[in-house]
């Protein structure tokens, strides 16, 4: 109880929580109390009571991936008959549909394709920017950027600069999983380590790019490792300041190699605890997104009372989570309804959180 008072004092004075305090909250504090603390923090940071969403589309340009993470149900080997790479024309057709629906964000991610060169992306982004100037290209991820730089034999900074010049506006925080290498070695042994992930993000921020940060929990990490992840995100943010949002989701075990070891996904209370904790620890990250794609519409809406202040994208198309056996669908009117029913004002926003329309 005394511990909790100290934490509440720290929060009210705007002092970042220590690892020990975060761990205490995560492991010892009642769900509803944790929720109330996070809700108060959310209200403090976003007093207007607005909850945002962005009209976007996921385009997975390829499922061929050399990383072959053990938690992933989406990747295929380059020799696999189910492997694909979308053509420029296919991608443009998808973006065209997005524009027709009033979409403003393109979330294009793939596998780590061993052969697609940096120039392929430069041409693609330049073309997309020319044809669809209202669409913000929020694409790739640190692991893809690192691969492209290595493939081109240039520095990370030079690679990001070239992508930026071609039209890449921001980088989603995917592939963070848990930013602790002991966990990464187990679940994604071929993927970049946490320091490399941080380096991409900090470099992008230095170049004036905004990015997001994510967490995939429930993949066997300890509470200490989960807290470490949050603290590392907060420290990166303190140095470079470019994270617009933090998004957590739970590992989906179906159809994955890791699923033989970890058969059960996180529960509803697990998810809400992580959302609430992230709001409390990440005092320097402005927005916390709820993940309806992995948790369903009902849980995402409930998360708005546990610290989240954004519903993420409408996701005209989603393939990666669907490959792991979970496929929820949401329309823009439904998102607006859920936000309103939770007692907030729905706001359609851009990738950089500029308000486009209030409902």
């Amino acid at each position, binding site marked *: 109880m005394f511990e909790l008072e100290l934490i509440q004092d720290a929060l009210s004075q705007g002092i970042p929580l220590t690892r020990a305090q975060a761990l205490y909250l995560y492991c010892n504090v*009642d*769900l*509803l109390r944790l*929720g*109330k603390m996070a*809700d108060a923090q959310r209200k403090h940071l976003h007093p207007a009571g607005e909850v945002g969403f962005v009209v976007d589309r996921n385009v997975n340009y390829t499922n061929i991936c050399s990383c072959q993470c053990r938690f992933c149900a989406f990747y295929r080997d380059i020799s696999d008959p189910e492997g694909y790479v979308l053509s420029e024309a296919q991608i443009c057709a998808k973006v065209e549909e997005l524009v027709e629906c009033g979409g403003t964000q393109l979330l294009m991610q793939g596998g780590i394709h061993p052969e697609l060169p940096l120039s392929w992306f430069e041409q693609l982004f330049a073309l997309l920017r020319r044809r669809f100037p209202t669409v913000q290209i929020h694409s790739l991820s640190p692991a893809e950027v690192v691969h492209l730089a290595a493939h081109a034999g240039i520095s990370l900074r030079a690679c990001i600069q070239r992508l930026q010049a071609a039209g890449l506006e921001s980088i989603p925080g995917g592939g963070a999983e848990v930013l602790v290498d002991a966990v990464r070695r187990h679940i994604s042994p071929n993927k970049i380590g946490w320091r490399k992930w941080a380096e991409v993000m900090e470099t992008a921020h230095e170049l004036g790019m905004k990015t997001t940060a994510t967490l995939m929990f429930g993949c066997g990490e300890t509470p200490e490792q989960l807290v470490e992840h949050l603290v590392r995100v907060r420290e990166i943010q303190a140095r470079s300041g470019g994270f617009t949002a933090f998004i957590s989701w739970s590992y989906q075990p179906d159809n994955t190699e890791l699923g033989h070891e970890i058969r*059960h996904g996180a*529960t*509803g*209370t*697990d*998810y*809400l605890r992580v959302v609430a904790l992230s709001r409390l620890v990440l005092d320097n990250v402005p927005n916390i997104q709820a993940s309806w794609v992995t*948790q*369903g*519409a*009902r*849980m*995402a*809406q*409930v998360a708005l*009372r546990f610290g989240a202040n954004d519903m993420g994208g409408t996701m005209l198309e989603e393939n990666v989570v669907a490959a792991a056996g979970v496929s*929820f669908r949401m329309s823009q*009117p*439904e998102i607006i*309804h*859920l936000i309103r*029913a*939770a*007692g907030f004002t729905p706001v359609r926003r851009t990738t950089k959180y500029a308000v486009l329309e209030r409902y």
Partner: protein
Amino acid sequence: MKSLLGQIRTKIETDTRISDAEALQLFESDDLLAIGELADLANRKKNGLRVFFNVNRHINYTNVCVNHCRFCAFCREGNEPDAYTYNLSQVLEKAAEANAAGATELHMVGGLHPELPFEFYLRLMATIKANNPTIKIKAFTAVEIDYFARISGLEVEEVIRELKRLGLDSTPGGGAEIFDAGVRSQICPEKISAQRWLEVTEKIHAGGLKSNATMLFGHVETYAHRVDHMRRLRELQDRTGGFQAFIPLAFQTQNSNIKVEHGPDGIDCLKTLAISRIYLDNFQHIKAYWVMLGLKVAQVALCFGVNDLDGTVVEEKIGHDAGADSPQALGKEEIIRQIRSAGRTPVERDTLYQDLQVY
């Protein structure tokens, strides 16, 4: 609002009933977490940290029904190609499977079949019991019992006596929907009236059988209708004490003839469960029926006043025909894990809420 919540807290602490007006004010409040805390307090006073589940199996013996309720996606005309009625040996086969899988209860409900005679149901009871003497049969809603009286020309009391004599152990709480006559005329005009439902249920209790009570929410009804529904249940329970659990059922929008724009959202589900816990002070148990809520919301509800997570279910047709995206069955281990994850103690129960095993 603060004073309302404080006032209700005092009432819970002093075992005083809340009024209809107070319940309505709770429904109109956005303060989900405060309502949750009150419900949690009320539940802990009654049930501590224990959460019940059972190992059961649903058998929906026919989907042929003369009632055609407009919200129902399950009912068929006898001549439709996907109409079905299990014969005695099919039911026995499913009962035997359930028995072999360690089930302690069969949950049996079906449509109001135009041709099956009352003798069929009597034979069903007798044969199931003869073959599975230890399994408890929870079957037939008040709507079916009323129908049996009509097709057999017997008094309701005699119908209950005969079914009980041959093996019926308790009855489920279905068919209550929303008691308000105006709502019933919109959603289930051919179904028995609220008055009749309550009358038959009173006779079930008088005949020495326990039952549950449900409420189908999230369609055309108002909050006031929900409170009115719960008030009638609370009054009947005062007289008979025969209700075991209250089970709010979230309306499923798909394949229903009632066109509502949005089904009940996550916050509405949790709020409704929580308020029912606070209002129905004479009900020992509030059940979160995961088939219709979704497992994550049902599990979170354990922190919002709920002390029963239903059962393993195995083969559910009614909610799934209406688009429920929950799984068909849950393993016992998974239910135990879900309950533990909410910080509660799993208790396997029998049909009459006797402990079978504490985990």
